[in-house]
C-alpha cells in the first residue's frame, strides 16, 4: 500500500518524531509506514489523515496487489 505521508509531512514541516508524538506511536512506526513496510490499522490511518486535515484516500493508495 502506497502512501504520501512523507509529502504531507514535508508540507506541514514536521519531523517523523513530531508526527509520532502527535499520533501516540513510536518514530519507528512512522518510518515503517512511510517505507510501506507496515500497513497501519484503520484507526491509525484515520488519525494520520485527520492530523493533516485530508481524507484517508488522499494519503493512502491501495494497489491491485493489496487486494489479491
Amino acid at each position, binding site marked *: 500500500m502506497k502512501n504520501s505521508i*512523507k509529502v504531507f509531512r514535508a508540507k506541514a514541516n514536521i*519531523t*517523523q*518524531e513530531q508526527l509520532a508524538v502527535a499520533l*501516540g*506511536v*513510536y*518514530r*519507528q*512506526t512512522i*518510518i*515503517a509506514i*512511510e*517505507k510501506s*513496510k*507496515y500497513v*497501519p*490499522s484503520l*484507526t*491509525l490511518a484515520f488519525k494520520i489523515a485527520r492530523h493533516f486535515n485530508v481524507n484517508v484516500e488522499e494519503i493512502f493508495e491501495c494497489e491491485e496487489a493489496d487486494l489479491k
Partner: protein
Amino acid sequence: MKQNSFYILIGIVVTALVGVFWLSLQWNNSVPIQIGFIIGVITLYMARGRITGIIDDERSVAISQKAALRTLEVFWVVFFTFSLGIIVWTSSRFFGLEGTSTLRFIREHNPPGMGMDKPFFFNPGFIQLLLLCMTIFLYVGFKFYYERKYGGEDADEE
C-alpha cells in the same frame, strides 16, 4: 508508577522468590515456591498496569503478537515431544508395554557414570525449565525477525 520503579519491583520480587525457593528446598515442600511464584507474577502483572508514560504503539503490539504466536507454535511441538517421551518413560509399565521402552534399561540398571542420581540428568523439572528458557530466546529471535520485516530500523530523518 514510573518504568524504573517497575524494574526495581521486578528485582525485589525475583530476590524474594529466590529466598522462597531456597526455603522450599530446605523444607522439602514445593507449595511455598509454587504459591509464591503465582503471587509474584500477579503482583508484577498488576504493577505493570499502573506504569505511566507508556506509548501504546500498534506496530509494536502487532510484532509482539506475531512473535508470541510463532513461539507458542514451536514451543508446543517441542514440549509435546518431550512430554510424550516422559509418558513413555514413566508409564510403559502401566500400559503393559514395558518391553518397548528403551529407557527402561537405563532406569533399572543405572549404569555407573551416567549420573542418574544427580538432579540434572533426565530430571523432567530441569528439562522443562530449559524448554521455558528456550521460549524466551525463541521469542526474542522472532521479535528481531518481525522488527526487521516490518521496517524497524532506526533510520535518520529524511
